[in-house]
């Protein structure tokens, strides 16, 4: 919500700067940004009372002397004869109607009304609606203006339970479904209560006689309606968070005063219906409890002084909560008020000592498995559980994000298969992934299984021992025998027939219930450790990689290490990776063959052959500078 600094400061005697007010508002918990003298607030949902100038001034009164300077019409007002019936008093326990007739419609707005539209760069609508909007901004109470000439017949407030067409005053046609609080005229909806008025009875530029409706609606009846019907509504934002049920008299008399300041009023009449009294909350004075909750030591005098400044009334031994503070009901609520006034950052820390629970071991089966897999080159992934496959036992999401995410997965392997294909498309030729996740099934009741799923394809590893070996069932069975010597695991081959891929390597997978694994796992001695530092992430390139292999022949064995150190430490912006993919000692020829694979990739562009060759040729040149090192064919 936007509120201009000048609209606040004109009511504050000390005339604080925008920065001073900003600091105080932050201390009070009213998060905001400032742009060109306008505060843009994001209020917490419990503070509906702050959604106005007066609401913020009530809070700022703890720090400053506030003078509201908001005149109201004070004379007696005739009683309005209105054919109105409230059929849902529990939803609308209090409502008032004001009828006003004016002589002429003013062209120019004055004072605060003019400032509101000018300072906040708002467009005008029509005279009565403009005053209504301003009053909502000033006092926090939304009102609705009907063109009185268009209200003919009995006006009914009712929570409607039947489907009805309704055209809003913004000419949006909506179909009301389910329960909706509405105002009806001749059985037609003329107002979706607390959200938006209807076109059929809306005020226009020519309206000279208005009926202003000022109501309290139970927040529960309004919540969700603006989202349901996709209507941007400041009124519903306020009603959802709760408005002051005791403000009608002030708001309507202020309405009259503002009209009176702009044009002559020919007639006015008012009627208020109070069906159910608003609850009055009283909390016992107990400063010891407040001190205990916050962990401070303030005097009762200071405590009560804070509350009085915030509008609370102190009666014998109890604190009466003002009608606009529907969020205050308990000692903890009052403690928060005191803590805000003191400032959370000004409350000193008190040493906490939590009794130690019995030390929990992180070395359970699941974690042993994770580190075993890490030690063998597997990467842990996490996938979304939402899928579009409706297996018999899949749990259906009632309100999915879209039709491709209507169900919860019943296996992890499918997610891993997608991950594998994604990485294959990114030219990865050694892919080993795993995920541990809870999987839920729809049965008589919802049941859960904790699963470990593994998928692997391509080369066993990117080193000279594993480069030429392909991942297959045998490899994985042998691998898992190291950790589960007495348990037979059934690895599966996933067919590539239905997969859109040119890669031919076998895809091996397994999905295991963690509970089914034996405690043998616990004896595994892991090599990998969790990283101590949090590595800084380098942006990933989306450009394709290019690979270059160079095979060297070395007669002088001493030079092997020199070559390795040179090439494994060779650095260039486009050289992404280098590793030894081949090593062989030829006893007959007494020479060492060693092969290096270089991966080239640029962060921003696709590399050309010429660009790669510049680096490639440099690598060849410097490596051949080592005596006794040759490249067959060059």
């Amino acid at each position, binding site marked *: 919500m936007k509120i201009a600094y000048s609209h606040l400061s004109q009511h504050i005697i000390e005339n604080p700067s925008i920065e001073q007010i900003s600091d105080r508002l932050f201390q009070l918990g009213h998060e905001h940004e400032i742009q060109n003298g306008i505060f843009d607030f994001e209020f*917490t*949902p419990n503070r509906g009372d702050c959604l106005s100038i007066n609401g913020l001034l009530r809070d700022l009164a703890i720090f400053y002397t506030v003078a509201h300077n908001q005149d109201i019409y004070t004379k007696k007002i005739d009683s309005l004869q209105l054919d109105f019936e409230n059929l849902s008093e529990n939803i609308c326990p209090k409502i008032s109607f004001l009828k006003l007739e004016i002589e002429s419609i003013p062209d120019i707005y004055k004072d605060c009304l003019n400032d509101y539209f000018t300072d906040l760069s708002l467009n005008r609508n029509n005279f009565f609606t403009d005053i209504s909007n301003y009053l909502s901004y000033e006092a926090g109470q939304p009102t609705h203006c009907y063109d009185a000439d268009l209200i003919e017949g009995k006006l009914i407030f009712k929570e409607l339970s039947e489907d009805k067409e309704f055209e809003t005053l913004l000419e949006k046609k909506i179909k009301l479904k389910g329960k909706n609080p509405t105002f009806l005229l001749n059985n037609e909806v003329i107002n979706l209560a607390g959200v938006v008025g209807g076109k059929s009875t809306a005020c226009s530029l020519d309206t000279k006689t208005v009926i202003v409706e000022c109501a309290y609606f139970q927040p529960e009846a309004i*919540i969700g309606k603006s*989202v349901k019907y996709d209507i941007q509504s400041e009124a519903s934002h306020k009603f*959802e968070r709760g408005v002051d049920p005791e403000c009608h008299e002030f708001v309507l008399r202020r309405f009259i005063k503002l009209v009176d300041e702009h044009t002559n009023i020919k007639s006015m009449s008012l009627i208020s219906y109070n069906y159910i009294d608003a609850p009055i909350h009283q909390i016992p004075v107990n400063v010891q409890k407040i001190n205990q909750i*916050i962990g401070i030591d303030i005097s009762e005098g200071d405590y009560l002084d804070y509350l009085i400044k915030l509008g609370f009334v102190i009666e014998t031994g109890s604190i009466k909560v003002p009608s606009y503070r529907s969020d205050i009901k308990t*000692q*903890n*609520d009052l*403690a*928060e008020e005191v*803590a*805000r006034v003191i400032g*959370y950052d000004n409350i000193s*820390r008190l040493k*906490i000592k*939590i*009794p*130690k*629970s019995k*030390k929990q071991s*992180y070395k359970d089966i699941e974690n042993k498995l*994770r580190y075993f897999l*890490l030690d063998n*080159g597997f*990467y*842990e992934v*996490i*996938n*979304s*559980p*939402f899928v579009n496959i409706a297996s018999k036992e899949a749990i*259906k*999401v*009632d*309100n999915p994000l879209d039709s491709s*995410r209507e169900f919860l997965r019943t296996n992890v392997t499918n997610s891993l298969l997608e991950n594998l294909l994604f*990485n294959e498309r*990114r030219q*990865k030729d050694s892919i080993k*992934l795993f995920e541990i996740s809870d999987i*839920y099934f729809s049965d008589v009741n*919802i049941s859960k299984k904790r699963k470990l799923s593994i998928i692997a394809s391509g080369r066993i*590893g990117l*080193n000279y021992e*594993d480069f030429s070996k392909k991942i297959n069932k045998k490899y994985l069975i042998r691998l898992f025998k190291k950790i589960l010597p007495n348990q037979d695991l059934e690895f599966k081959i996933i067919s590539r027939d239905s997969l859109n891929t040119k890669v031919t390597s076998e895809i091996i997978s397994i999905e295991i219930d963690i509970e089914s694994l034996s405690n043998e796992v616990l004896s595994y001695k892991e090599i*990998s450790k*969790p990283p101590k530092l*949090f*590595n800084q*992430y380098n942006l*990933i390139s989306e450009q394709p990689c290019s690979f270059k292999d160079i095979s060297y022949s070395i007669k*002088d*064995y*001493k030079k092997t290490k020199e070559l390795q150190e040179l090439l494994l430490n060779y650095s260039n912006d486009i050289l992404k990776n280098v590793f*030894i993919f081949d*090593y062989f*000692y030829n006893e007959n020829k*007494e020479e*060492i063959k060693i092969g290096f694979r270089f991966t080239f990739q640029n962060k921003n562009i696709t590399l050309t052959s010429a660009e790669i060759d510049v680096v490639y040729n440099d690598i060849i040149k410097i490596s051949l500078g080592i005596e006794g090192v040759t490249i067959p064919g060059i």
Partner: protein
Amino acid sequence: MPEHKDISPPELIKDRGSLHPINHMKDSVMELLTTIGFEIVDGPEIETEKFNFDMLNIKKSHPARQMHDTFYVENKSNLLRTHTSPVQIRGMLEKKPPLAFISGGKVYRKDDDATHLPMFHQVEGIYVDENVSFAQLKDLIYKIIYSLFGDNIELRFRPSYFPFTEPSAEVDILSKEGKWLEILGCGLVNPIVLNNCNIDSNKYSGLAFGLGIERMAMLKHGVTDIREFYKSNLDFLSQFK
């Protein structure tokens, strides 16, 4: 003939895998909290409205309960938990104070854009004992933040609102660029919640806090797009060894 006869092969550099950075972050936070004294409790991701909302003082009318914020399943009979707090409710129902629980895991909200995902991770903690105060909560939060971000980090507490805590606060840390970044939410357990769990709120009080793991991991690793965590891209994952 070469004089040197050492033909031992080069060091065999075997590629190690990596933990997912979100799980690593979660584990680190949980490990830290267990050293402070918290006990790990676990609970289901598919919850009831009772445990996810009612017991936590989240009223029927609260916007979070709407279909546009919460995923409901099986004809609204259950829901995907929107936070890990229901685990603590279950813990409080099972054990009497003093108690100190942490729970971590996946939570779900109906969001999907550049900064929000429908699935993310939280770690939440609760400590209930006699005379637990807001000043003690501050001490605990300082300990946690200093452990995770170092003793020189500047932090501030702001009043906030959660139905299950009162008073409630959000905690920001000051980034190197001089920007305040929201890092966690916390507060004193609302007495209504304690009473719901059959804990005498006249005798006991509690503190609670919750951290968004993705947010922490993004800050610690310098990841700017939350979606990167869930692409399962090996170029990404291999950076977190």
